[in-house]
């Protein structure tokens, strides 16, 4: 056992750093620093830069365009990306649907979909939850009825993140009700969002933003070649995807970065005040989150190591999801506390590029802290609520 990086790993880290200092565009960097929301084009541009470097699909098998990196290399990459405050990859294509396609799809599907995902030519979104099927996902009702060489799809998907940007949606649909277990009638279907009958309606969240949507399907005709794997096996495929999703959701590297920023902020006297770190209460809370986060970092490394020796991420990924989101939310709350009264003004427009810093209220992104705290209450709800994760652990790990 050795806690230090090897010479090769250090060289790898320097390579990532050199790439970020050369290729991470200054305008995106500034937007990220100033808390200005990225446009769709910004995100796509950044993902294409990563593709150009061969780093768009870190976890994919090499044959489809992945990196073949060791777990430690992946860990280093995630940390360096977060440390540079580079935007996260939008997960729906690269991290979610692609593993299902390259694991269960046929050769035509791989050739048709994977290159566009890798190159960020096509934006994907996720069609899992429905108004009546949240935690109980297997109760989903959206139907796909086979008529000759196409399915006719009817139903509603909800909480569709960035669905208004998406070109394609991957859906769990019901292809048969005549089954012993309701999980057996579910299939995994890819739908072009431009097909007639697909409509996307915004859901406004508590921070007054549009991030999620409801997607309605009315007699949408989907060619049968868009079915991934076997009809009725979608639940199995979807679970694999969710386990990948859960390991991604932990966001350990991003949390480490945010804790560093919070510590820096608290060490300075903002607005001429005493440094907040001199407040023992705050210093202790900061330390306590740091310690939990260090533990989670090593839990995640252990999981990555297990995946590297051939194991798919199993129910243990639920631990990462629970602890990762709890820590994100604890950090959100600490940022609110650090901002004091400046957590409370609602002035999102002051972060538009045209507004000079001198006219802003609060220091840096202080007035965004409560909005982020509000918005990120979703983290313990999405991807299978943390209560559902505990059910998974008690059933599949504890055998209860």
């Amino acid at each position, binding site marked *: 056992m050795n806690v230090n990086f090897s010479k090769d790993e250090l060289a790898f880290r320097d390579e990532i750093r050199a790439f970020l200092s050369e290729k991470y565009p200054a305008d995106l960097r500034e937007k990220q620093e100033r808390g200005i929301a990225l446009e769709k084009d910004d995100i796509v541009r950044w993902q294409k830069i990563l593709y150009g470097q061969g780093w768009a699909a870190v976890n994919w098998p090499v044959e489809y365009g992945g990196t073949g990196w060791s777990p430690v290399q992946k860990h280093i990459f995630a940390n360096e990306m977060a440390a540079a405050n580079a935007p996260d990859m939008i997960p729906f294509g690269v991290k979610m649907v692609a593993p299902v396609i390259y694991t269960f799809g046929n050769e035509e599907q791989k050739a048709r979909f994977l290159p566009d995902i890798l190159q960020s030519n096509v934006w994907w979104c996720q069609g899992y*939850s429905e108004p*009546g*099927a*949240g*935690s*109980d996902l297997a*109760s989903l009702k959206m139907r796909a009825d086979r008529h000759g060489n196409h399915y006719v799809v009817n139903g509603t998907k*909800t*909480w569709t993140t960035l669905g208004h940007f998406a070109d394609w949606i991957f859906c769990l649909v019901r292809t048969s009700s005549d089954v012993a277990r309701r999980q057996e009638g579910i299939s995994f279907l890819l739908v072009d969002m431009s097909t007639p009958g697909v409509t996307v309606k915004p*859901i*406004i*969240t*508590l921070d*007054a933003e549009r991030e*999620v949507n409801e997607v309605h399907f009315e007699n949408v005709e989907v060619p049968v070649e868009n079915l991934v794997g076997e009809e009725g096996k979608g639940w199995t495929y979807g679970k694999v995807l969710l386990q990948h999703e859960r390991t991604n959701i932990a966001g350990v590297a991003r949390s480490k970065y945010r804790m560093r920023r919070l510590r820096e902020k608290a060490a300075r*006297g*903002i*607005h*001429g*005040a005493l440094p907040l770190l001199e*407040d023992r*209460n*705050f210093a202790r809370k900061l330390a306590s989150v740091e310690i939990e986060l260090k533990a989670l970092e090593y839990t995640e490394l252990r999981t990555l190591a297990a995946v590297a020796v051939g194991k798919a991420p199993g129910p243990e990924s639920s631990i990462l999801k629970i602890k990762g989101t709890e820590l994100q939310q604890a950090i959100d709350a600490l940022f*609110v*506390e650090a901002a*004091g*009264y*400046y*957590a*409370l*003004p*609602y*002035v999102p427009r002051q972060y538009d590029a045209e507004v000079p810093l001198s006219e802003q*209220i609060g220091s840096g992104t202080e007035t965004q802290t*409560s*909005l982020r*705290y*509000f*918005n990120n*209450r*979703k983290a*313990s*709800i*999405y991807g299978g*609520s*943390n*209560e559902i994760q*505990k059910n998974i652990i008690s059933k599949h790990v504890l055998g209860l």
Partner: protein
Amino acid sequence: MDFSLTDEQTMLADSVSRFIDNDYDFDTRQKIAAGDARFSAEMWRTFAELGWTAVPFDEADGGLGGGPVELMLMMEQFGRGLVVEPFLPTVVLAGGVLRRTATAAQKDRWLAPLIGGELQAALAFAEPQSRFDLADIATTATNEDTHYLLNGKKAFVLNGGDADLLIIPARTAGQRRGRDGITLFALAADAPGVERKPYPTVDGHSAAEIVLTNVDVGPDSVLGDPGRGFEALRAAVDDAALAVCAEATGILRAMHDKTVEYSKNRVQFGVPIGSFQALQHRMVDMLMICEQCRSLLLWTAMVATSDPADAGKAISALKYQVGSSGRLVAQDAVQIHGGMGVTWELDIAHYFKRFTGIETLFGNADFHLDRYVNESSR
């Protein structure tokens, strides 16, 4: 020891409760909060007509002679209704300073129209660097013959954009964080040299940043004794801290009740989610916290009534309790509502945001636990 309310107190609580039920439903509230004005002038007139703007003031001043208990009863209902009208900044904060410090002439000029509902007011209790320390005042008032020149910055002045009257604590002597040397000034919000930058707050209310540049005020603007304004400032802010704890208690109870109701109706896995023991226990925990908060609220209101000079410690105990354990109720209410809990459409999200605003107002849980420790060792 007596927990019972007087007939007048019961009538007041019923009157506010009926108003929330009949005239201030969630849709109405949302329309008001989304408007340009941030609160409804019409509602405010109703508040005045019902006598609510007169509640905490002496009968000699045209008030109804109410105290902490009356304030508590009203604010609990305002919490349940998510009321955005500026009762707290105008009546409790600015009114709280005026009733303690104003001369008869000053009361005629400012307190009478405030009670009549014709005057909006604000108390500038914070500066950009001060966090929750009321004595951390860098704004200066320099003496020029009988006049003063005010210079400085005030942060997060609740109702600052709509106020006609501003109460500005400024330093006429002493060190930046010293309690001595603070003087309270009342001035018209449109006085030359007052620059206001108003904004909505994340919880549906409004506040302003205020810059004062050589604002020239006369001796009739001084409230109370020069250099000795801290006590009235602290007392008014303590009233307000008690008021928002009552508001938060009303909010938490509403969140709890709505969550229990939701859990009975939301079906997953073929049964209402309220049948799951994991959720049942959490909702029981939420209920216990609500009850603990209400108990401490009643105790604090009683202490503040019988022994106002010593109420600070009780108020800090209450603000700590509400801020620390109340947060769990608010977060769990959102969590148990699932995705619906983070939508704009549902009231739960708006209760959550107001509760979060209250956590910070007049000092967060850490600040008040420290103050409790300090008051205990006095």
